């Protein structure tokens, strides 16, 4: 069974490799203050939309940019520039996850995931922006 032993070792090596690389590369959830320390690193920031200030979006200027205020889980509020068209129903969101970088005091996001009130959608696809 020698050959299978070699195969077994390769399998274990790959498994360790996967765990190791993913532990190193995979980003953590974070907040604005941590993101401002490393302006070149991508962070996932969880927070809530400030609904008292309207979301700015003018597709005539740039259809791929909208901007709003978000408060992260530590209570820090920052202006967010999302480099995408404005997601539908943003104002209804309960929680937002942004993926992007903090540069010059603004958080530049290239992806957004919204959690909408889920009372009525038992297990159905939500809108992904």
């Amino acid at each position, binding site marked *: *069974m020698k050959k299978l032993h070699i195969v077994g070792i390769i399998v274990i090596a790959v498994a360790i490799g996967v765990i190791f690389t993913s532990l190193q590369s995979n980003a953590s959830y974070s907040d604005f203050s941590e993101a401002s320390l490393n302006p070149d690193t991508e962070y996932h920031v969880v927070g809530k939309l400030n609904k008292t200030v309207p979301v700015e979006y003018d597709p005539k200027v740039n259809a791929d940019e909208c901007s709003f205020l978000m408060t992260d889980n530590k209570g820090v509020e920052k202006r967010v520039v999302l480099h995408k068209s404005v997601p539908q129903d943003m104002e209804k969101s309960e929680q937002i996850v942004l993926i992007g970088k903090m540069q010059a005091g603004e958080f530049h996001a290239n992806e957004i995931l919204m959690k909408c009130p889920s009372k009525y959608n038992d297990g159905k696809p939500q809108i992904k922006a």
Partner: protein
Amino acid sequence: MDKITFIGEHLWVGILGNTFVFLSLISALVAAVAYYFYSKEQLTHEWKIFARTAFSIHSISVIGIAATLFYALFNHFYEYSYVWQHSSNSMPMQYIMSCFWEGQEGSFLLWTFWNVVLGNILRRTIDSKWEAPTMAVISLVQVFLASMLLGIVLGDYNLGTNPFILLRENPEFANMPFIQIPTYLVKLDGRGLNPLLMNYWMTIHPPTLFLGFASTLPPFAFALAGLWKRDFISWQKPALTWTFFSIMILGTGILMGGAWAYEALSFGGFWAWDPVENSSLVPWIVMVGAGHVMIINKNKGGSLFMTHLLAIASFLLVLYSTFLTRSGILGESSVHAFTDLGMQGQLVIYVISFIFLCVALLIHDKLIRVSYAMCSILMLAISVLYGYKKIILLGWLGASTGITIFSYIKYFPKEEEEESLYSREFWMFIGSLVLMLSALVITYFTSIPVLNKLFTLNKAPVKIPEYNLWQIPFSIITLTLVAVTQFFKYKKTDPKIVFKQLRFSLLLALVFGLTCSIPLYFLKEYAGAKNLEKWNLISYSLLFIAGLFAVFANAEYAIRVLKGKIRHAGSSIAHIGFALILIGALISTSKKQTISQNTSKKSVEGLGEDFNAKKSLLLTKGDTLPLGKYMVTYKGKERIGIDVFFHMDYFTKNEKGVLVKAFELSPMVQDNPRMGKASNPDTKHFLNNDIYTHITYADLSDDSPKNKDAYKEPTNFVGHMGDTIFSGNAIILIDSITTNLNEEQFSKNDSFLVVTAVLKATDVNGKVYRATPKYILKNSMVMPDQFELSALGLKFIFWKINPTEGSVEIQMSEKVSNAKEFVVLEAYMFPYINVLWLGCLIMITGTLIAIFERRRVNRLKKHTLSGEKNN
């Protein structure tokens, strides 16, 4: 409080339904116990009759639950919470099925139902030797599933959720005021099926997928029965047909989900490595692995541990996927939001119980088995009484893994002879290992939210490129093995012969693959501006070549070796289909082109490649803009119910350079009162590519004629001479300013001053209009004055002069009908995605052929066996 007597309720339906629910649970329990005793004492005829009767009662009860729920849905008995939540009076009849399985309870019921169907088929077709142990396992699974419908609240825990709970008893809705009125039912209408789900996908996808989930049960039951009866081999032959069936149905269900996502949801693709997609893909991959090691075992023997491990793992992974998707643990990592119905604890206990059962059956030594059981119960007791749940769970999982490895070493018969490197079984085994590894990696990535909870980490979910990074190499190896392996014979083959047979396919794959992949991925003019890393390009090319190799080699095998006998070529056909799926996925994803272009000049390249996607196109009504090789116009919107369709025409240039309409697309945005707005793409299918368009932003409001002539709120502009103002339909230049008095006159008499701003408005056709709003100052008072430019539907008020800055302030308001309607859209071109769908059909057909062939051979053997006996 007085008890209210409610009028018009059909309480007997609920009583009937609940009777069936309890009956199904108890009869499943009785069946499990009875089959256990029947399996202990094979000869007791009474136990057999008893067990069979119990399972029949269970089957009838499950069908009874389903029929009762249907009856309630069909007759709109809104006193039942489930009926009220999922159906409504106005709902078309064809969606009654869909509301049946829209909710959690209904989908569990669907799963239970399929288990019953498969269980009955299994019982009728199975060899009498295996009936008792397999049916005992199936009955036990049914006990757990039936309890999911109980709906008993024990403190903080919900033991299942009941589909027959009354609306006024459902804690979520019981406080609604109208329910306090005795006649509340008279006018009550249901909330109805979620409009997003009112399509044919919702009618066909869930039943197929749940049949797929249910189909993992028979192989699991066989494998457990094998462990239990210490007969590791003879269960495999009857189980193989079931394994193929599972591969086919589960595969179909998953691909249907992908097609649904591609056709009707706006993910921008057919696969997004979403946790919900992954958790149905993983059991399938493992089942494919199980099928292949079972084939090894059938033809050559050996691989006993792997067959048990994979057949069991596939079912356990279905349970785990139920836990992932139903417990709310995925939280923000999934687009499929599943509500937490307070069943997390129950689901964890189910998964753990079945792992326990498998490990306990694996242990041969009675002493170890009893001590393992005792330890497990002790640990459970400690965790319930004192907490430390996570540490105990981890410790228990570790111990169970340890025992599994120990049992493998101790009890499983090993091969004495080492497999030859040039044998089919060796490479098939390697292939199964690769599949298992690939499934493990996906499971690990998908489980990040679970790991976060277990180890109190804060890891973000894994992104798509990382999934691809690992899965592409696995696919390359798998496809190469798919091409090569069947040319080896069992035991030993001369490698030279294999190479001789394969060289033609290999050469063809290399030539064809390289001529395609080099320009597609490496030459600038074809590869486009996408700056992909070298590693990606090489792995894409290798995957493409490996895929072609698999197609050619299997085709050659089917034609040359099997001499084109379709009956025997099931596996080759399925392999070709599998390879085509991967080729189609590779080309359509890696060469997916964003054809909508943002015309804004603003660049954000400084932030990196990901931020500069620039794929949103602003399209104003009446405008014609380029979209890939097409020109596109937006013709207007149309509201049908809650669906708003945006009609667009696509044009191409003919030989003479004249635009000719090529096709029309109507992407839709659903203004869904329950779900919010949902964008549905529209796709034009061509043979070699798809043009996919979806709306990302649009005004859904009604532009009915009644308020067309109203003016909108004015906007203020501060400008100098020569500045321009933009309205919805014109560009307005502040041309000049004139006064009725010169400076000298003004200094003498400032009682009446008129300053006129001359504005030149150029409309879209280039026609110039003059507007002359006046600033009138009479006795130091500003007199209100406005200028209406009715041709353009614009109103101007010149209301302020800032002499120090030399600027003027002008208010402009536009007619509502002026605001040119626009949409923001994204459009993609998916090349050769039809290869993927073709591959799906071919793979399913191939598997089907293999199933029929297996059944035929099994039946033939039975005949010859019985024939021999008779002789």
